[in-house]
């Protein structure tokens, strides 16, 4: 085969050949296989790179300390940081569940919804809620309301009559 007329690999193609020859176009791969000049250039470059690794290895120091392994078996479960994090996560989840459960129970008690208990407890709770509701309507006892003229049921009746008179037939 006459290779004189064929184009030799340029610098970029040579680098590409060293990085990964299979990435070169098929025609260049074939040329590289046949052309002694290109092949020897590539091999020289590869030798240079191999020498780089060898020289680095020769000029690097040797480790002086031996590797010390822990006492337990390889790959056995260990109280590692990761496990510790899992434990904290689990504890936090339990705490959240407790708080949510406690909170909802307390809320239910405050709203006066009946909970399971003895009949006397239920009666006591109902009376308490009645008192609470009365206090919500009028916080002051009736005596104080009379003194302050705030609570006059008859006046209220007259007032409503005035606002919306009854139609007499």
């Amino acid at each position, binding site marked *: 085969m006459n290779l004189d007329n064929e184009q030799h690999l340029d610098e970029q193609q040579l680098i590409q050949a060293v990085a990964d020859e299979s990435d070169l176009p098929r025609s260049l791969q074939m040329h590289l296989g046949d052309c002694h000049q290109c092949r020897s250039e590539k091999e020289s470059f590869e030798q*240079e790179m191999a020498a780089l690794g060898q020289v680095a290895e020769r000029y*690097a120091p040797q*480790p*002086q300390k031996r590797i010390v*392994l822990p006492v337990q078996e390889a790959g056995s479960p260990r109280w590692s940081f990761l496990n510790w994090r899992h434990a904290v996560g689990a504890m936090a989840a339990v705490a959240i569940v407790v708080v949510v459960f406690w909170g909802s129970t307390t809320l239910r008690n405050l709203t006066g919804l009946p909970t399971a208990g003895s009949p006397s407890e239920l009666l006591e709770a109902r009376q308490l809620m009645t008192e609470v509701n009365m206090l919500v309507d009028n916080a002051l006892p009736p005596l104080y309301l009379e003194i302050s003229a705030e609570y006059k049921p008859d006046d209220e009746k007259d007032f409503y009559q005035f606002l919306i008179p009854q139609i007499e037939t």
Partner: protein
Amino acid sequence: MASTDDTNRTADTSTQLVVLVNQAKDGNRSAFARLVDQFHSDVFRMVYYRIRSRSDAEDIAQDVFLKAFQKISTVKDAARFRGWLFSIALNRIRDFQRKKRFRSLFKVEEENIDSQPPVETESDEPEALEQVLKEDFWRQIRSMLDKLSKMEREVFLLRFFDHLNLNEIAGVMKKNESTIKTHLYRALAKFRKEPGLRQLLKEAIE
């Protein structure tokens, strides 16, 4: 014939490695110790090439094997154990460099230490000439690596210093092979523009 022998030897070594890794995964401590013996130098050198401090490289290598010991059960492909070790080492090196950068924010002295030639002086070095050559080599390597981007540098080191193939590098760096090839190509192109270092290597070959 020699080629067949080499192929058989490589296959035997690979099989032995798989057996050792599987035994270590099953909790066999002595199998893991043999893996340590086999790969200690590789991991140490790999770390040293990147941080250029023997004592730090020894500490990091210790950390790498400790982590490997704890996580050996997670190895998926026993044949790629070396690459797996290197990916642990790479993470440890990143942690170390991050901490070092953080410390250097508060300590001016450490920055000064960094700017000094990275090679450590060894009292037991036989010849002064060898020491000079060594220092010159690492100075030129450092100068060349400084011209590469972070990715180019890592790919270049893994390929030519740590002798990983493209597929292994892709695994260690968690990138696809074509990305690795692109960075390798760029790194090689920059390396070709380093006449001093190339001359030094040619002399080493001769």
